[in-house]
């Protein structure tokens, strides 16, 4: 497109200039030709005229010398005329006043000749005394110069062919045409050169403009020309610089926006009123579980595979109303969905859909509700049992033996209630209090103490307690109370959830990278896979019936976890059907 434009443009400029020049040159050539023509003619005529005049004088003198008169009679004239023509080398005629030719040097019978009265030179001679004229003679095929002189009785006319004049005129014309042509050619060359020098920068400018328009923002015009075009080029370059700056800043803003949208963890998408997805971020792809296709530009219901969400988006698009709900999407996670209509000048442009992952929040909520129901259940059970025994005792007050058994059981349950409440208080204290003093504690001694306290219980259940502790010269920095809670509860659990005849192994080792690991393994019933994440929750019980039987409060591991968090220790669990293994990792 731009190529044809350019050529047409160049032709039009040079053509116009060349046409104007040509017309001017031709006009001047023709004008000069005319002027020269006239001058040459005039010069020739002047020369011829002088010659004629001289020769007329000669004839005059000759006649006077010979005949003593200017007016001899016809016969003499006829005889003499040839002589005179021979001497002068001209055609000589004598013409009567009425125009009849009396004698003519070239014609023997002058009577047969035309009347010469109205010949230009004759008429002029009659009027002014002498006259001349130049005519082309078709008979002789040459220009003839005539000169007439008026005398009393006749008019003497002389004629001379003037081929030189025509020849020199032709020559002049030729020279002029050659000259004109050369000038024309030269001027065309000059014009082309000038046009080229004008159009080169213009073409450069056009090239630059079209390249810039097609997106090559690095292009600039390199050489300025010194003309007005140079100024245009300079300002164009300026404009280009500013444009690039503007574009860059816009691109930067756009990128900033994109990065912001991309880095938001919530799934975000904008759907226009044609139901097409216009803006979408990475998180949204994750929400709708689309990994292989690009969704922008597609209809929203083509890619979102959730009936409720699609229905709500459809409604929001139709009614321009916001919508807020929770929904589990196809990737199995629960999202808090908010759909907000985007309006501009009161017309709906589309909707903004924001998906916030609330799966974890939901889980925590569930834990909380579970906690309340579990706690009330745990606290209520002993009271119900105590009440049951007391009622039985009230009915059977006489039977002391039976009563004492019931009372023992009631006390057992009251103890249980107390230990639950104690554990709750302990847990609450660990959770809320921050002032656990740092002190030197010796892990070996702590574990030794716990084993001593729990040894009796283990013996009762026929469980062997083995310990293989690495000697720790210096203690570690920590809080004795918290550390004791951790080891006591872990060893207590290992005993409680063991099988009769089983064993509990307590091992400690120091690894290279300055950490002390205490392993507490049991040979018990193990923890099912699906429960392993939840055992640290308060009152969580893997098997509701069995654990109460084993005497736990349901809070032990919660206390362990919180105490470990406060100390900056780590607890890991591994479990299979042959038993569980808890590791306490202490960073020295």
């Amino acid at each position, binding site marked *: 497109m731009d190529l044809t434009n350019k050529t047409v443009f160049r032709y039009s400029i040079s053509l116009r200039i060349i046409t104007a020049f040509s017309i001017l040159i031709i006009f001047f050539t023709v004008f000069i030709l005319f002027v020269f023509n006239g001058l040459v003619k005039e010069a020739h005529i002047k020369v011829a005229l002088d010659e004629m005049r001289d020769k007329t004088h000669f004839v005059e003198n000759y006649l006077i010398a010979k005949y003593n008169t200017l007016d001899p009679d016809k016969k003499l004239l006829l005889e003499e005329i040839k002589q005179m023509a021979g001497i002068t080398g001209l055609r000589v005629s004598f013409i009567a006043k009425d125009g009849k030719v009396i004698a003519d040097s070239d014609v023997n019978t002058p009577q047969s000749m035309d009347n010469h009265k109205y010949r230009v030179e004759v008429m002029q001679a009659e009027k002014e005394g002498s006259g001349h004229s130049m005519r082309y003679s078709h008979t002789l095929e040459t220009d003839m110069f005539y000169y007439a002189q008026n005398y009393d009785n006749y008019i003497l006319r002389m004629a001379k062919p003037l081929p030189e004049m025509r020849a020199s005129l032709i020559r002049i014309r030729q020279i002029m045409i050659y000259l004109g042509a050369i000038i024309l050619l030269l001027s065309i060359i000059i014009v082309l050169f000038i046009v080229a020098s004008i159009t080169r920068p213009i073409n450069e400018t056009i090239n630059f403009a079209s390249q810039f328009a097609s997106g090559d923002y690095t292009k600039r015009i390199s050489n300025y020309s010194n003309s007005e075009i140079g100024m245009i080029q300079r300002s164009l370059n300026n404009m280009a610089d500013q444009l690039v700056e503007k574009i860059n800043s816009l691109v930067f803003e756009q990128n900033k926006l994109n990065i912001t949208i991309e880095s938001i963890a919530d799934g975000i998408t904008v759907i226009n009123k044609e139901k097409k997805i216009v803006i979408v971020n990475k998180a949204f792809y994750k929400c709708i*579980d*689309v990994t*292989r*296709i*690009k969704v922008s530009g*597609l*209809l929203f*219901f*083509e*890619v979102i*595979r*959730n*009936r409720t969400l*699609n*229905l709500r988006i459809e409604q929001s698009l139709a009614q321009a109303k916001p919508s807020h709900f929770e929904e589990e999407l*196809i990737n199995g996670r629960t999202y808090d969905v908010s759909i907000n209509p985007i309006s501009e000048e009161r017309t709906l442009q589309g909707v903004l859909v924001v998906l916030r992952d609330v799966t974890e929040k939901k889980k925590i909520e569930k834990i909380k509700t579970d906690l309340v129901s579990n706690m009330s259940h745990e606290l209520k059970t002993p009271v119900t049992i105590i009440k049951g025994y007391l009622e039985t005792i009230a009915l059977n007050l006489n039977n002391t033996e039976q009563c004492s058994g019931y009372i023992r059981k009631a006390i057992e349950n009251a103890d249980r209630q107390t230990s639950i409440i104690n554990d709750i208080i302990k847990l609450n204290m660990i959770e809320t209090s921050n002032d656990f003093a740092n002190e030197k504690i010796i892990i070996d001694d702590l574990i030794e103490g716990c084993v001593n306290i729990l040894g009796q219980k283990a013996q009762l259940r026929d469980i062997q307690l083995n310990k293989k502790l690495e000697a720790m010269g210096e203690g570690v920095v920590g809080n004795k109370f918290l550390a004791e809670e951790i080891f006591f509860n872990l060893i207590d659990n290992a005993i409680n959830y063991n099988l009769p005849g089983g064993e509990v192994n307590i091992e400690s080792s120091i690894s290279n990278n300055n950490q002390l690991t205490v392993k507490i393994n049991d040979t018990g019933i193990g923890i099912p896979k699906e429960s392993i994440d939840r055992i640290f929750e308060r009152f969580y019980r893997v098997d509701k019936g069995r654990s109460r039987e084993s005497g736990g409060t349901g809070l032990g591991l919660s206390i362990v976890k919180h105490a470990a968090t406060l100390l900056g220790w780590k607890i890991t669990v591994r479990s299979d059907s042959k038993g569980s293994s808890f590791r306490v990792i202490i960073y020295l």
Partner: protein
Amino acid sequence: MITHLEHEIENIKRKVFTMTDAAIEAINDSIDALMTLDDKLAAKVIQGDTRIDKLEIQIDDDCVRTLVTQQPAASDLRLILSFLKINTDLERIADIAANIAKEAIRLEGRPRVTTTGDIPAMAATCVNMIKTAFEAMTTRDVSMAAEIISVDREVDELNIQLYRELFAMMGDNPQIMPQALGLIMVAKSLERIGDHAKNIAERVIYYIEGVDIRKENKDHSDNK
């Protein structure tokens, strides 16, 4: 400028995709009901099936009306013809999901038999097949649709594996007979959902390329 035909096609498309969502929801809910033994959820799936049946009739009507009044050509024609068939497949999928839900109710809270073969994973594969088939349709990606046909074989394998395992377990412990039989039926159902998803993928290929892939496969088997 959207033509009348384009408008009609978008309308049908929307309904087909709604039906797809409903079918996927039915599969997920029925498997959830089976895994958590949730009678209410199962009942919801069974109830939802009637809505899907109604939608199927609507889509059929819409397709036929568009074919007659708009006389679409080329890919538009193939799309509508594909929708007519996909429609039936989706309806069958929803029916099968309802059957799985009925099975969940029939178990009456009997503890689930644990198997190595994973029914939820099988269901997830089926859902993914359906989802991918429609993604292939929207992006006109033949290779994506062709993959689904090979995934169907995996589902078939899983079904056979589960069947063998459950059969062996029943021999060891006749008490679990009702649950195991139920699971065999569910696995079989999922295998059939996989088949329908494969059908959908074949229709997608027909829509994109105008070639019935079933004919080609038949030619291949004839050569053998």
